[in-house]
């Protein structure tokens, strides 16, 4: 199938945009956190400098090729998942069922990275990896229900069509499915790995968990993965519930650029909300995090799903 011009542009634009936006978001959130700490904080471009320094390192020790694969998996996983996210209403690949594929792809990056850390043989990273997988079990449950609810509500399994269905001023999905939106936001806190759910990389307990043995280039790759996963996950929430940032109708290039801008701003707002929560809360223990996730968020997601099913059947 021939790809249209915009698709060709978006293939290269989407990953670069995710890379740029991810590090910009991190820079802004570090400045924002510093202000909450009543201090000056690093320059906004600090995250770019960090990655440049990591790739400028002369020596990057690796324990085995599996560790290299782990770092590569992380970056590939997140780049693959960015292709399915409609940015400003325009996704690279859009077909029926791409939301299911995306849910899979979101899991590939952490699993690949877990494979890599397993090869390092450091007990701290082993504990970090097991915590990461447990936490994923925690937030995947409500998140999966939320996806099912949105799919049933708009009875389409393609994110681009969900975004199109939300056009117009007042029919964002967050107004139609408030319960699912709240459950999704709570799950987002775990997906982004922000406190109170950053057990996998808890420095004070397991010396930054999986990243213990990653140095130089490999740590650079993991930081790229972390930055781009922020854009992916925040962007996914914006697409599902905040109308995908599509404000300017029409297919002109200026409309696309405007929509991309709105989409980025909405993603930044979602990221800063989760960073604000991060700054004022400590960290749960692993058991407490799972108890929390299988409690309120799962209940909310169930209620949201129930509402959607009943409204389809015609009760509401």
């Amino acid at each position, binding site marked *: 199938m021939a790809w249209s011009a915009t698709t060709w542009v978006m293939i290269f634009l989407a990953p670069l945009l995710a890379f740029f936006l991810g590090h910009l978001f991190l820079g802004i959130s570090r400045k924002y956190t510093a202000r909450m700490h009543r201090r000056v904080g690093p320059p906004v471009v600090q995250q770019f400098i960090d990655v440049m*320094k990591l790739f400028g390192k002369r*020596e990057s020790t690796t324990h085995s090729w599996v560790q290299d694969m782990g770092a590569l998996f992380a970056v590939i996983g997140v780049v693959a998942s960015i292709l399915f996210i409609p940015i400003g209403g325009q996704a690279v690949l859009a077909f029926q069922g791409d939301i299911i594929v995306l849910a899979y792809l979101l899991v590939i990056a952490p699993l690949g990275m877990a494979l890599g850390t397993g090869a390092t043989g450091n007990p701290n990273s082993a504990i970090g990896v097991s915590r990461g997988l447990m936490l994923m079990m925690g937030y995947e449950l409500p998140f999966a229900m939320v996806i099912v609810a949105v799919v049933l509500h708009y009875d389409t399994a393609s994110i681009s069509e969900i975004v199109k269905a939300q056009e117009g001023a007042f029919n964002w999905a967050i107004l139609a499915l408030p319960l699912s939106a709240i459950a999704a936001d709570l799950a987002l806190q775990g997906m982004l790995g922000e406190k109170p759910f950053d057990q996998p990389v808890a420095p004070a307990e397991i010396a930054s968990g999986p*990243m*213990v043995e990653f140095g130089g280039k490999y*740590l650079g790759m993991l930081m790229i993965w972390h930055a781009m996963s922020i854009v992916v996950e925040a962007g996914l929430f914006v697409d599902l519930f905040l109308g995908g940032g599509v404000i300017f109708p029409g297919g002109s290039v200026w409309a696309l650029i405007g929509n991309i801008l709105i989409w980025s701003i909405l993603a930044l707002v979602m990221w800063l909300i989760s960073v604000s929560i991060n700054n004022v809360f400590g960290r749960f223990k692993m058991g407490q995090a799972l108890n929390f996730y299988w409690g309120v968020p799962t209940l909310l997601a169930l209620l949201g799903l129930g509402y959607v099913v009943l409204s389809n059947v015609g009760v509401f």
Partner: protein
Amino acid sequence: MSDDEPKGGLLDQNGIPITNLPKRGFVRRVADWASAKSMWLLWYCTGCGAVELPPSFTSRYDMERYGIGPMATPRQADIFLITGYLSVKTLKRVVRSYEQMQDPKYVLGHGSCTIDGGMYWDSYATIKDVGLYIPVDIYIAGCMPRPEAIFHAFEKLQSMIKAGEANGWRRYKENYQYYRKNQDKVFKRGPDWALEEPVLK
């Protein structure tokens, strides 16, 4: 001066030659600029000077303005702060952490105890000069240097990195036998120390 004494050239206070890097290309110059602007400390409070680190990290002095922040493990860190005296037991862990750090790595010696043993000159448990065991790029004077002195050292280190003069890691690799001989006199290396001979890449 037996054969494995350090080779000629400009010597630092312990007779270790200070070698400048060969001509640096554009990429290496940019990498040095980036590593100067984003220096990551190893989170290891080795001595009493470490009580001046919390004030330097936190709101009043805020080290993060320079892009400097603590990192959890030697793999991720660039700078090693030897904050104050080093007991023999700590020196063993310091050398092991230092060898795990990735090049280019820099060492800052806090306080007079790292220069000549300071107030514990006659203590059987502390070493008297860090420069004998690991190469030190900058010594900071003071019996626990204040945060302002620490920041002055960071700025000096940044300018040295940009100019390509901060190459203690290079001296360590070129004169490894000299350092190793001093270390073996003070502590015994465990059998599980994987690193035999670091190679200069």
